[in-house]
Structure formats: C-alpha cells, structure tokens
C-alpha cells in the first residue's frame, strides 16, 4: 500500500489520453511478435481485441504506461492489466461484452480524483478511461439543460454554460479536472451544494452501458417520466451497475449578485456555533465552509494580506447569492450572527477578484497543507450540523492519541467533514495506524448520527464501515438493487458493498495480480 502524498490534486491539468501513449509502446505494437508465454499471449490477444474495438492508440498495457491508472486520490493502489479509452457508446458496450466473455474485470474511470478508491482496479483487469468522451453534445439554454459525454470536465461545462447565463451547480473542489461521468458515479458535492444540492439533484437522465454490455437510456430531458426513477438509482452507484455514456444535466441560472465573507473566531467552538446559528436564522447560504487553526498555519504564509486570520482558531467562509437586495440583507444578518458568536474579524467582498482572494485559503488549503507533512489521509464524513463542535473535539483528540496532526477544511454548512490526517509513510507502521485513526473518526461521525461519506462515496475505502450504519437487511436491499441492474462480479468488483470474493480487505489487496482472465478464449 502506498499512501497519498499529492496535495493540490485539483490543480492537475486534465489528462490527455492520447498523449500518454508512449512512443515506446507504439514501437512495441509495431514489433509485436510470437514466442511468448501462454499467459502473455492471452493478455496480448485481449489487448489486440481491445485495439480492434478502439484503435491501437487507445489501449495501454505496458506496466510503465499504466502507472497513473493504478490509483486515485485515496490511499489505495492496484495495477490494471490494460487501460482502454473508448470514444463512443458502442465502443464502451463492446469493451464490456468483450471483458464479460473473457472473464476479466472492468473498472470505469473518470479523472481519478475520488477519495475512496472508486477508480482503483482491486482485481486488475481493464480500466475503461472515459476521458476521451469529452463532447458537450447539446447546450439547451431555453430548457436549462445540457447533454454531455461523461468525460466532460465539470468546470468546462460551467464555463461553456456561462455564455448563456447558466452554470452547472455541483462544484467539487476538484472541479477543474473531475468529470461529469465521475460526478454521476459518486453523486459528488462541493461547497455550493449547501444551497443548490448535490449531483443527483441536477442529473435528469443518462444513456448507460449496463453490466451486460447493453446500452439504454434512463430518464431524459422530460422530468417525472412514468416508471421507477432509474436515473436516481444510478447516480451515486459508483460505476458498479453501469457506465454512463451520455448525461442530461440541469443547468442553473447564474445569480445576479454574490457576496463572500470571512469571519475569524478565536475558538473553534464559536465558529461551529455560528454555523448552526446561521442556519437556525433561516439563511441557507450558497456556501458555508470552515478552515481550522492548523490549516490557517499552512495557508497564512502564502496569503500576505490575510491579516484577518491572525490569532484565529477557525475561519468561516460564507457566501450568499441571489438578488442584490437579498444578498445585502442576508450578509448583514450573517455578520450579526457571527459577531454574536464571537467573531473578532469579519471581511466582506463583492467584486470577483476580492471574492477569489477570500476563497483562496479554502481552495488551496489541501495544497498548502502538503508543505507541512509528507502524506495526508483525507477523510469524508458527515455529522448533523449541530454536532460539529463535539465531533471536531473528538477528531482532535483522536489525532492527539495517535500522534497525527489533523487539519480540518470542510463544508461546515452541511456538516460534511474533511479531516486531513498528516502522516509519514516512510515511518514504519504509520500507514496502518493512519487507517485506524480514520476508522475512529468515522465511528465518531456515526455515533453523532451522521454518515461515513458525504460526497466521495464508499468505494474500497469505506466498505467495512457500511455495516456500522446499515443493518444486514438494509445491505441486502442494496444488493437487490445491484442485482436488478444485472451487476456481476466482473463489473467494477469489490466496491460499495462489503462482499465479493477475492477483493481483499478494503484498501489492502492481494499483492499478486490474477492472470488476465483465467480460462479465457484468448
């Protein structure tokens, strides 16, 4: 197991799949010859079959070329045996059918920014990289919808929609690289989901390639179609019951005015109290984020003007949007509440560049934290917002007990915590102990009446926690849902539900790769 040490994942440039095919591989493909061992030949012929579907330049199989497909933003890692980048629905369907026939697992993948191992291939097999399907097929401004391919980058969609006075509301922190397909799989959130809802509230329909390899539409532009809400069931299914190949999303009108504020508090408890107090006053801000003392320490040196942070134990970032008049009134109320709760500094910005500057600390926190420790384990848990104070206290206490500093940068408004546990994988035992600390933090969230994931999914990482919040009967019902879509052991195996043979334990996998499909015809 290798741990995450990639601060600022959200700033990575979008991967261009074609560029990643090395010249060396092209030479190897050109010089493909016989005389190999049987297993090699099998894998080579599966590769050849994949190449026949998508073209030679859209398949990777040399271990060196596939390194970046071994991991996502979690601390899990496992090598696939081939990576294939389809360009059409028909190609996706053909790949799934081929893998089924060959008895090889498949794992769909977007930009790989998830925190729970959803894009990792725990049993090897074929990773289906959706990053070549990047077309915005339709921008329907009148009906406020767009039809996109799954590889479209979240931020890109909002940029294009902006020309029509619209945007795509869910805005994960990784929005500059993460894809709509990945967002659909994980039911992703983001800072502005407090007021606007998460991915499922903005997904109207999709064309899906099912585990059988059959493609079909669920939902569509017209809402409330007769029948069960398959679209709703599909969103958040983490790529285990199908691969979305076209997606209809709702677009949201841009607000007329936006006000961004920061409030600095000498005590963390005061900041948490302000979160509840703002909501209790009937204000649902567009965003309500918190950074704690450790994060402040990390970002302050990078923000020379941010004197408001000095001496603060927590800073709230609050954004209100809507009509000019409401934002003025709501901002005044927010300021009053924050001051009542003990805020010592309060800054308001309305101009775009000033607002950006206030957001900087929040958006670059993970990157800045990377300067303080070699590795971070970023958690994703949810608590009722009135329980923020006791749970944050527990999180700190757990960190102290394990000797791991923990920074908290999170969506306070909806109680979605993101504790970042700092550790050093080079020190023996730390990689294991950090998982134990993480498990205790999850338990604290559960005990407070919360959940084990707010926006990054269960994936591989959280499977073992599922029985802590769901009974055996609840989990059995989820298995039924999976079965209804025809899920198989080969279709993105080992994710979400705590079952499955040969899956290992969460993030710990069998070290040796199974051969590429025992008993295949190739």
């Amino acid at each position: 197991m290798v741990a995450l040490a990639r601060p600022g994942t959200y700033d990575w440039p979008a991967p261009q799949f074609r560029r990643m095919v090395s010249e060396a591989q092209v030479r190897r493909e050109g010089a493909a010859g016989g005389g190999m061992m049987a297993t090699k030949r099998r894998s080579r012929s599966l590769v050849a079959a994949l190449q026949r579907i998508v073209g030679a330049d859209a398949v990777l199989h040399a271990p060196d070329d596939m390194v970046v497909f071994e991991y996502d933003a979690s601390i899990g890692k496992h090598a696939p045996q081939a990576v294939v980048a389809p360009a059409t629905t028909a190609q996706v369907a053909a790949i799934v059918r081929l893998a089924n026939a060959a008895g090889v697992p498949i794992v769909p993948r977007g930009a790989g920014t998830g925190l729970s191992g959803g894009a990792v291939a725990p049993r090897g097999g074929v990773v289906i990289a959706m990053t070549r399907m990047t077309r915005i097929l339709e921008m329907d401004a009148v009906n406020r919808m767009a039809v996109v391919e799954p590889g479209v980058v979240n931020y890109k969609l909002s940029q294009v929609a902006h020309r029509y006075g619209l945007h795509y509301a869910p805005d994960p922190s990784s929005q500059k690289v993460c894809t709509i397909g990945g967002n659909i799989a994980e039911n992703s959130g983001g800072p502005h989901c407090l007021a606007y809802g998460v991915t499922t509230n903005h997904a109207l329909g999709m064309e899906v390639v099912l585990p059988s390899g059959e493609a079909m539409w669920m939902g569509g532009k017209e809402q409330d179609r007769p029948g069960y809400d398959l679209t709703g069931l599909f969103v958040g299914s983490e790529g285990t019951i199908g691969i979305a190949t076209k997606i209809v999303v709702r677009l949201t009108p841009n607000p007329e005015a936006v006000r961004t504020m920061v409030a600095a508090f000498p005590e963390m408890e005061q900041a948490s109290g302000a979160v509840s107090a703002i909501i209790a006053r009937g204000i649902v801000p567009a965003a309500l984020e918190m950074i704690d003392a450790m994060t402040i320490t990390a970002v302050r040196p990078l923000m020379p003007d941010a004197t408001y942070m000095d001496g603060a134990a927590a800073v709230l970032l609050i954004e209100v949007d809507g009509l000019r008049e409401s934002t003025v009134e709501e901002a005044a109320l927010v300021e009053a509440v924050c001051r009542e709760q003990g805020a010592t500094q309060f800054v308001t910005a309305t101009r775009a560049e000033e607002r950006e500057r206030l957001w900087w600390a929040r958006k670059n926190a993970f990157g800045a934290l990377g300067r303080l420790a070699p590795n971070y384990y970023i958690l994703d848990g949810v608590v009722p917002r009135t329980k923020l104070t006791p749970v944050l206290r527990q999180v700190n206490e757990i960190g102290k007990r394990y000797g791991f500093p923990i920074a908290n940068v999170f969506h306070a408004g909806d109680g979605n915590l993101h504790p970042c546990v700092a550790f050093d994988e080079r020190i023996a035992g730390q990689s294991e102990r950090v998982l134990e600390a993480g498990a205790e933090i999850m338990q604290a969230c559960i005990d407070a009446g919360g959940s084990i994931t707010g926006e990054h999914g269960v994936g591989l990482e959280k499977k073992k926690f599922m029985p802590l919040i769901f009974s055996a009967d609840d989990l059995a019902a989820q298995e039924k849902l999976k079965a209804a879509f025809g899920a198989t052991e080969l279709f993105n195996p080992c994710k979400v539900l705590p079952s499955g043979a040969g899956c290992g334990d969460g993030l710990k996998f069998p070290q040796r790769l199974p051969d590429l499909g025992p008993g295949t015809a190739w």
Partner: protein
Amino acid sequence: MPAAAELTQVLQAIAGATNCLSAAELPLYAVDGMTPRAAVYVRSVEQVAEVMRLASREGLAVTARGGGTAMRQGYAPARLDVVLLTRKMDAVLEHVPAEMTAMVEAGVTLGGLNAALAKHGQMLPLDAPASSRATIGGVLAANTSGAHRAGYGTARDRLIGIRIVDAAGTPVKAGGKVVKNVAGYDLQKAFIGSLGTLGVIVEATFKLAPLPPSRATLAGAFRELDEALAVARGLLASGLRATALDLLNARTWASVCQRTGNPTMSDRRYILAAELAGTPAAVQRMVGQVHRAITDGGGKSHPIEGEQAQAEFWQALADTGVDMAQPASMTTRCGVLWAGLPSLVHGFEAMAEGSKLEVGLDAHLTAGVMRGWWWAEGGGVPKDDTLAAEAVGTLRKAAGHHGGYMVVESCAPGVKRKADVWGQAGPELAIMRSLKQQFDPQGVLSPGRFVGGL
C-alpha cells in the same frame, strides 16, 4: 388463502379489533372498483411488518393507503386483498430546527406537518392536492408535485432518508438523517413515485426549507398564449428566480377563482402565475419587474395580496382536480419542453373542444411538466367514457411527437378499461421488472398497478 372473515380475524390479532374495518365499510376503500377483503389501520412499523409477513405467506395482495387522495393512479389492480391504512402512523418523530430536517411517520399529513414546521419558521416545500389529507407516505409513493417545484424541487430533492417494509415483512432503511450522504446505493429513489409496488413506506426524513421572510404572488392575464410564453421566457432569461412560475389556461383560472374569489378576467385566455420569495426588498423589486414584464408584454397584472390569500391560491391550484364541488373526471400529466409547449397547449384545448370536454391546464414552466384536468362540458363527469379514452391516445401521440410523454394520473374505472394510463414503456422496463422481481417476487404489493403492469 384465508376466507374474508378469517383474514379479518388474523388482522385483528395483529392490529387490534378496533383497527380493522367492518365488511360494510370496505367498499369505501375499493381501488378502481375492486373492493378489498379487509382493511386495517396499522400503528407501528412492527404491525406493518406483521401484515406483510402474513401477506407473503398467504399470497395476499396488499395496497397501502394514506389519505386516499391518489388512489386512482395507475392501472386497475390485478388483485386486492388487504388495504393497509397508514393514516394513524402520524407522529413527527424528530424535528431539530437548527438541523432543518424532520423525520416523520408515513401517515403524517403534508398539511399537518407544515403547520407544525411553520411554528419554527420552516416548511417542507412539496405540493400535493388535498394537502390536509395527503400523507407523507402517499406524497412520496405518488410523487406529487406542483408549482413550487420551480423553487424547491420535488420529493427526490427533499428526501434524505426512508424506512420501508418490504414485501416479505422486513423493515429496510435507506439514506440517513444528514443532509448530505452518499453512503451506499441511493435506494430511497426507488420508492418515490413507485405507488407502493416495491415496499410500504413507513418513515421518511426530509431536508426542510426556511419560510421566506416575504412572499408575493402575481398573476398576469393574456389574450394569446404566445404573449404569455414570451413574457415567461423573458423573465427566466433575465435570471429571475421565481419559486413558482406556472402557465394556466382560462379554464383552470376560472376554477381556482371560483374557490378563492379572485377576479375571473374572462376575456383573457392564458394566465401566468408567479410566486416571488425572499427578503422584503428583493421581493418588492421582483414584483415590480414581473409587473412591468406582464404589462409590457400585453398582459393584465393582478397581484394576490396577503399571506393567507396567496397560500389559498396555490393550494387551490393544486386542488383543481380534486375540488369537491367539481372533481375532474380525468387528470393527465405530460412532460414537454419549451419548443413543444405551444402546440401541445393548443392541441389539448382543440382536443377538448372537439370531444365535448373541458380541459384545465397548468404547466410548471421551469420543469416542463404540464397537468391537465378534464371535465364534461359544463363541468360534470362525461357520460361516455369513450371520449376521454380516445383523447388519451391522441394526446399521448401529440406529446410523443415532441419527444415527451403523457400519463393519466387519475380517471374513472371506465376510462381505465379503455385507455392505457401509463403508455408503452421503453427498454428500461426490463430493469424495472427486475427491480420489482427483486423486491416483491411474489407480487403482493399493489400487483398490476404500475408501469408495464408491475
């Protein structure tokens, strides 16, 4: 299968004698003319589970019923043995105002819940006909929606947790009680709009909304459809965030006016109704903006003054089909995008005229969902079911021509026998069938009523 008397005895043992209805009362609980063999008020999750265990053991067909306001949805049941009455499971289990969430039992009425929440300045912003009778379980199972979906979404946007009892009598929970949660499959969505065919909803947890500090309702009356739609499109393009923006035809407006005392504006054929909510200054400005847009666009603007009158207006609109004095004989719902809307509105009205029917229309403009309420000429029930049944086919074809769909949400049993209320399902029916098979392999939950005869 036990005889009716024996069945009632077993149910009495589960729920108590006073909670089982007498044979004489049963016809009141008939579904599409099919009278159940027993009807029982359940008071706890455990009782629902016991009834379902009995049903699956004996192969009894069970239909859950809350306020009984949406029982005419779907195909006529294939079988019906027990009507499970959830109305007495009516506790608000948890409401923490600072969390802005509430967990309730399925039998709580939407109106009752909102009255309780209003004391804390909050609301569950879902619309339902007859909201004082409609229960949360029913609102979810029927996926009722109305004008306020423009501002607040529908049940799928508000539900954060659910508990159901499955066909075998096993209580199952999905979701939780926090507002943001992606742990596991989003099983909750299966039960919204499923008409009780996958499980009996017993508890639900919602994300609430604050009552806005100020609200205004404005109606704009137009002579021509094009004028009304042009104004609506202009308003939407301006970035206006109305919490409701509906297009009504004159028939709907007249029906609402009759019940609320608003002026009928009889020379106007199409009415835009908008609700604007927010801080007082913001609402005041939006009202000015909408008023100007209406008058500039050739319309007559009519404000509906006062909190009470506004609430009554919107509820009256939602109630159009279930108005006691003049209930609609058929309610249709279609999904239609902007491009198809004018032709569909005109098509529906022409159809009504040609068939000696009257149709009231209410289009939720930001969602592309249009409801139609149908009466005989003069407002009664058509004597001949054939006319309405024929209309269904024609209207569905028209909606389909624009890429949309049409379903009949409610109609007389006679119409149901002649017309397909759901319409032909697409290839995704295979997954729906499989879902039904997984959750109700014996077909004991409202068999036959859902899409594809599930």
